């Protein structure tokens, strides 16, 4: 046998020592993405952070220098505090509603067979093809004083209600926009589920509801977690929806940043608010992530 085997010894003398090359290929391949990320995300972020420490004077505008007054102003002013609280309250509510609607939606979707599954997946994703601004205008027409919803309310004898420019409307519109971002990660984690696991639960006498709560839900928790993080993060920094449906009175952080930049022309203040939003968002999301995922890391790997 051994005579017919190809030589395992080094074939050519020049190849004898295997060269341990520095792995340049991965660096080279990731360079375009790194450059793009650095140029388009990190640089503006860094400039914004720098800007937020600049001094500002209403007569002369931005004057450079270094000050913490904008941060102090935001932290001490109840006006800003209220806006931050409102932003996180609305985002948390939108996220919770997205979980309540999106998780069953994804579950139903995963149990469908083609062609229905493809059709409904498309239906879920289709709204993403329409601009958020257009959808926000759609909601404002629907809920406006002369809109069909109020028309129906009047016809039913309930009378006209003020629907626009309320927290409820902003939450509803945010849920509408964010739902696909919840459904897709949950659906993906459902796809990875062994269907026999649910059957196993049934075979041991579990009711369908028990099987879902005890066996399916814990396994798709990572999907719910990432969906929640996406929805919360996008909602907390949402601009178009609160801008168009919250109006001038119901401000959220992103609209305040906009006002500071474009109405007050107080760029350093706007930058400070934006940086605080980013930091608060990061802290909330990391805490949430640690709380939920840390609990499940050992089990699900």
């Amino acid at each position, binding site marked *: 046998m051994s005579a017919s085997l190809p030589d395992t010894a080094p074939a050519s003398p020049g190849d004898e020592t295997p060269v341990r090359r520095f792995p340049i290929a991965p660096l080279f391949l990731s360079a375009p993405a790194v450059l793009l990320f650095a140029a388009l995300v990190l640089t503006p972020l860094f400039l914004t952070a720098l800007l937020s420490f600049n001094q500002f004077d209403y007569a002369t505008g931005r004057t450079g220098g270094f000050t913490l007054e904008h941060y102090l102003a935001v932290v001490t002013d109840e006006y800003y505090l209220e806006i931050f609280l409102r932003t996180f309250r609305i985002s948390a509510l939108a996220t919770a509603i997205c979980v309540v609607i999106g998780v069953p939606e994804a579950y139903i979707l995963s149990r469908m067979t083609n062609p229905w599954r493809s059709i409904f997946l498309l239906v879920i994703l289709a709204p993403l093809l329409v601009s958020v601004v257009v959808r926000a205008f759609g909601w404002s027409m629907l809920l406006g004083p002369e809109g069909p919803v109020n028309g129906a309310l009047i016809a039913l004898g309930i009378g006209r209600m003020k629907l626009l420019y309320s927290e409820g409307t902003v939450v509803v519109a945010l849920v509408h926009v964010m739902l696909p971002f919840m459904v897709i990660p949950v659906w993906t984690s459902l796809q990875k589920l*062994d269907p*026999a*696991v649910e*059957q*196993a*639960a*049934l*075979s*041991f*006498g*579990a*009711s*369908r509801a*028990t099987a879902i709560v*005890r*066996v399916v839900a*814990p*396994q798709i928790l990572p999907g719910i977690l990432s969906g929640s993080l996406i929805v919360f993060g996008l909602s907390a920094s949402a601009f178009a929806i609160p801008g168009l449906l919250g109006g001038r009175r119901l401000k959220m952080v992103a609209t305040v940043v906009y006002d500071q930049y474009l109405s007050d022309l107080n760029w350093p203040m706007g930058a400070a608010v934006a940086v605080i939003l980013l930091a608060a968002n990061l802290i909330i999301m990391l805490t949430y992530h640690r709380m939920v995922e840390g609990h*499940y890391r*050992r*089990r*699900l*790997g």
Partner: protein
Amino acid sequence: MSFLELKNITKRYGPLTAVGDVSLSVEKGEFVSLLGPSGCGKTTTLQMIAGFVEPSAGTIRLDGRDITRAKANSRGLGIVFQSYALFPHMTVFDNVSFGLEMQRVPRGERKPRVEEALSLVHLSPYAKRYPRELSGGQRQRVALARALVIRPPVLLLDEPLSNLDAKLREAMQFELREIQRKVGTTTVMVTHDQAEAFSISDRVVVMEAGRITQIDQPYRIYEHPETEFISRFVGKTNLLPGKVASATGAGATVSLAGIAVPVETAGLSVGDTVTLCIRPEKLHLTAPSNGLLTGRVADRFFLGSQWLYHIDGPLGTIMVVTPNDGSTPAEQGAPVGLEWSPSVVRVHRGAMAEAPDVALEVTG
């Protein structure tokens, strides 16, 4: 009346009949295997017993009770899934305990029963582990313990050993049988592996294209396959087409391309087209002058305990298996004779089907 009884069970998917008219009786404490190639309907049959698939026609009775339309979660059967289907977010203990919890067994009683089930499968030290921290064989045992702990009337095994490597599979076969004997649970196993089915079953049900073709004890299926398909699917075999040349009351002579071969099958008549089926281990190598057939060693393969020869002769290539008794084997190219006793020849009526070798086709 049998403990588990399937009567004329049929499952149609549109125009396709996955399972047709399957009737099967399983006695209490019996270990029955459904054996067949992929797509023969054996898994669908098991799923109908389990309640995951509703039969299009027929009835399933368990201990005299009609469970044909009963929901899966009301049947109380223990099932071991091919993928094991353990609950990945629960410890081994909680996995095994799940079925008891669903049956509302009081907490105090649960613990000793789970511990008993885990010690039955030798997994007591692993109770606190999660499934992903276990090896394939250990997961398999957890699945078995989880199915047995609820003391099911029937244990259903869906290809339980197919995800294990060869050595472990063999060890688990015997252990599975030992455990089944110990607890005495009526068991129905689905498998495509004939060695697995033969070594541990009381009876084997051979299925082909949605139908049962033979139900018998393992050695009888091997020795007396009722159809040519079974003789091909179950073990290696030599199939030789011929015609009946002469027939007496108790036997006949079959002409294989001019070579007369005696057989002991009654009821044949002259001129019948038949296929003879001879197992390779029933053939013996002798000197060329002594054999019923002569040929030349085309190839020989050393299998450790046995030699497998391919003998080229007037009837094509014939497989011969001889035990390795330590003597020098026949050389490649050497002329040899083949002899056998007429009693080992099985006769199937009709011409040989031009089907591909099913035994080779079945891989997973």
